[in-house]
């Protein structure tokens, strides 16, 4: 076997781990302030353009402050209520107040927004977005680029980072953070294509590694979304927050779980059960099919449980129908071109003529690495880690609380990207050079990889991964209870034990996918365990976290869960309070920002 060692050391001002929409928006903002800043961005994919941001479809919410009908404060309220009163109000205010300005930034940097006859942005509506604090009709608030808005954002920030000379290390993973005293001064990177470890020393390090959807069996998330950034901080003894809040998107295309955007319902599509009943009327009499995602997912699961789902003998997965047959050809062929194409390609269905089979699929993590409103990573509820930042889906500031509204993720990633960029720029002004590579840097990575190569036994890497994904789906899914969660925790302990006996088939370091898959398995097991522990501890139902044994939201749990796990299975839990600053300011509409009831 090749001897494992740190092959090279690279020094930059800023290291960005994860070159998706959030990470690169951060990079561009830093360069806007100081163009000669040296930035290196590490990405798991073969080019930043391949990042998962590129698959986002529907759009993002942005209220023009001059809009005669819609108001930013309505959007703030919807986000607060949608989160089941568990996002942080300082963050809500900051993001939504900057939404329009940042949208214009994208327009000025080349994003091809879909436009109406006047040449202005077209808008569409999404679940949970309303006028007049939920009293009025649905708000047409989301701007978009057809049904490939994420691609528009990704292409824009990727292009701008090329222009700004960000350097990229593609097809690489971050295996360890480097610290000097308490300060983060970079990370150890494993470059897959060269089969080498590189230590990147940086004044500031930004984690923007995206989601954890691969923990579950059916997900809209790409193959790379294995919770890497979360596992990375957990191993350093740092916390993650609210991981029990996992969003199930109600309409995944049955089979592969590919996302069928909420825009389909925003444009007028609706759900039907086996008896051709528009069942959402029962669950959300006012918003119906445009209730927030957690409610629609629960409603679909309930329909299926009570025998009103449809079973297709081909794959045996129960589902419901989405009906978009009545939408115009223009909507089918132009506005929702990609998605209608997915139904044709992956399900063999023509949505103009046929009902579309859909079911809930894991889509998004509301939680993540806890940060303050500037994206500074926290080691506890009130202490930050100097030099370390987190942004995008891997971070939790928290804008999304326990349930995210459609369109709020893209909005979060580029607005927070800007704010984090600003904060990093400020930090760089006085930040000391990180100096030499600390002696013990890299030891953890080398010992971890050595263990993978030295392991003997007959366990199958893929089988363990599949068992984990199935058990998480069955026991830590849309509906949870004490018994199932306990079983899940025990099984996860067992799987970790079994994973020690996985033997790799090759000892090669170059482009060894199996090695990366092995590393990902550890990350997946780590985050799965933290999700399960967070879920069993939270004896209430809030947003996407639904406990059958505790169906109500409880005042006692009005806090964010902080979870630490340096040693596998030993989870320590803490709390971070929910920021209520809009409520506490006691301005005109403050009463809407109390712990309001959540009816749609």
């Amino acid at each position: 076997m090749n001897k494992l060692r740190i092959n090279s050391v690279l020094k930059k001002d800023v290291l960005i781990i994860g070159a998706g929409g959030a990470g690169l928006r951060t990079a561009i903002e830093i360069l806007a302030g100081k163009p000669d800043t040296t930035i290196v961005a590490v990405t798991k994919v073969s080019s930043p353009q391949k990042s998962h941001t590129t698959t986002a479809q529907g759009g993002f919410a942005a209220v023009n402050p001059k809009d005669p009908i819609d108001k930013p404060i309505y959007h703030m309220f919807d986000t607060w209520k949608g989160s089941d009163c568990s996002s942080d109000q300082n963050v809500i205010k900051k993001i939504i107040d900057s939404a329009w300005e940042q949208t214009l930034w994208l327009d000025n940097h080349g994003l091809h927004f879909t436009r109406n006859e006047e040449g202005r942005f077209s808008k569409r509506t999404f679940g949970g977005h309303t006028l007049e604090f939920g009293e009025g009709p649905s708000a047409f608030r989301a701007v978009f680029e057809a049904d490939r808005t994420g691609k528009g954002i990704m292409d824009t920030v990727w292009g701008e980072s090329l222009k700004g000379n960000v350097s990229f290390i593609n097809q690489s993973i971050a295996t360890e953070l480097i610290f000097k005293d308490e300060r983060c001064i970079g990370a150890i990177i494993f470059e897959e294509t060269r089969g080498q470890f590189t230590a990147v020393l940086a004044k500031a390090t930004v984690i923007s590694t995206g989601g954890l959807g691969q923990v579950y069996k059916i997900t809209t998330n790409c193959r790379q979304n294995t919770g890497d950034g979360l596992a990375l901080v957990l191993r350093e003894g740092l916390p993650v927050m609210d991981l029990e809040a996992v969003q199930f998107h109600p309409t995944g295309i049955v089979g592969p779980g590919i996302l069928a955007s909420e825009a389909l319902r925003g444009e007028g599509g609706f759900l039907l059960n086996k008896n051709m009943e528009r069942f959402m009327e029962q669950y959300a009499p006012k918003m119906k099919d445009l209730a927030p995602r957690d409610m629609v997912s629960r409603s679909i699961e309930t329909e299926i449980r009570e025998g009103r789902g449809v079973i297709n003998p081909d794959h045996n997965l129960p589902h419901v129908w989405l009906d978009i047959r009545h939408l115009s050809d223009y909507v089918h062929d132009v506005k929702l071109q990609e998605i209608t194409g997915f139904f044709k390609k992956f399900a063999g269905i023509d949505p103009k003529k046929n009902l579309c089979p859909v079911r809930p699929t894991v889509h998004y993590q509301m939680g993540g690495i806890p940060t303050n409103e500037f994206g500074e990573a926290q080691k506890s509820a009130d202490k930050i880690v100097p030099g370390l930042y987190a942004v995008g889906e891997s971070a939790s500031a928290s804008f999304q609380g326990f349930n995210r509204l459609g369109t709020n993720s893209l909005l979060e990633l580029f607005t927070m990207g800007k704010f984090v960029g600003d904060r990093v720029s400020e930090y760089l002004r006085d930040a000391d050079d990180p100096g030499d590579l600390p002696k013990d840097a890299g030891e953890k990575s080398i010992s971890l990889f050595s263990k993978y190569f030295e392991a003997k036994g007959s366990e199958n890497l893929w089988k363990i991964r599949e068992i984990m994904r199935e058990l998480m789906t069955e026991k830590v899914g849309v509906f949870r209870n004490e018994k199932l969660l306990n079983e899940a925790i025990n099984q996860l302990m067992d799987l970790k034990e079994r994973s020690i006996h996985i033997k790799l088939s090759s000892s090669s370091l170059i482009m060894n996918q199996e090695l990366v898959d092995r590393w990902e398995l550890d990350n997946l097991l780590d985050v799965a365990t933290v999700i399960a522990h967070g879920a069993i501890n939270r004896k209430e139902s809030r947003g996407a976290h639904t406990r059958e044994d505790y169906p109500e939201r409880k005042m006692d749990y009005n806090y964010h869960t902080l979870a630490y796990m340096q040693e596998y299975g030993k989870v320590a839990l803490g709390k971070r309070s929910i920021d209520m600053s809009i409520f506490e300011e006691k301005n005109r509409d403050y009463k809407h920002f109390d712990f309001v009831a959540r009816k749609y």
Partner: protein
Amino acid sequence: MGKLHSLTLKIHRYDPEQKKSWVQEYEINVGGMLRFTDVLRKINQEQDSGLAWISSCEHAQCGSCGVVVNGKPLLMCELLVQNAVKQFKTTTFTLKPLSIAPVLRDLIVDLEKAYERVHKAKPYVIKLADPSPEGDEHRIPPRIMEHYVEATRCINCFCCAEACISSHRHFLGPNAMLVNIVRLFDPKEAAKKERLDILYADNGVARCHTSEACSFVCPKQIDVAHFIALAKEGKF
């Protein structure tokens, strides 16, 4: 379950350490609704964990999993087994890596290298024509956007570049041309002269032989050749 298909896959492999190439055969029974990415995953799980290939989004939005199947460049993630059997009229499939960049291992090529050509076409607004009106968006009528918006759907999977009959060494490639052509149409782009220089450079559209192979293979069904034809005529 639907019908099972018995497939024979002949996969071109390469070991970078031994610098050795060979073709390996796999026999596998799979359902018709599985995608080729699922099939390779199954081979990893059941037969050969060392077979290397890459993918990411697995629904034809990122363009990571391009390979050549029975001579046709395509995305493995959107090739359903039942469609492949129908389309190629066989159950034997030869999988080769794309030839547009050096092979790293098995089916994985150095896309970073391939992307250098896209970078040369500057995938961004070089110079903004006019900033949007104060506090407002640019006014761009939909009929102007209609001319080029289809071309913005390109995901740089390099299937068109693979199929193109012009040499990779001399032509930046159809996808790189699209990047440039989009901004020639885009009213937000001011640097039209620089764009035209890229277009008509020695490695630009003049290298195109109008085989229309690009349009034929494009997984996004973009009529790439149409845009290149417009560019040749200078119709922006």
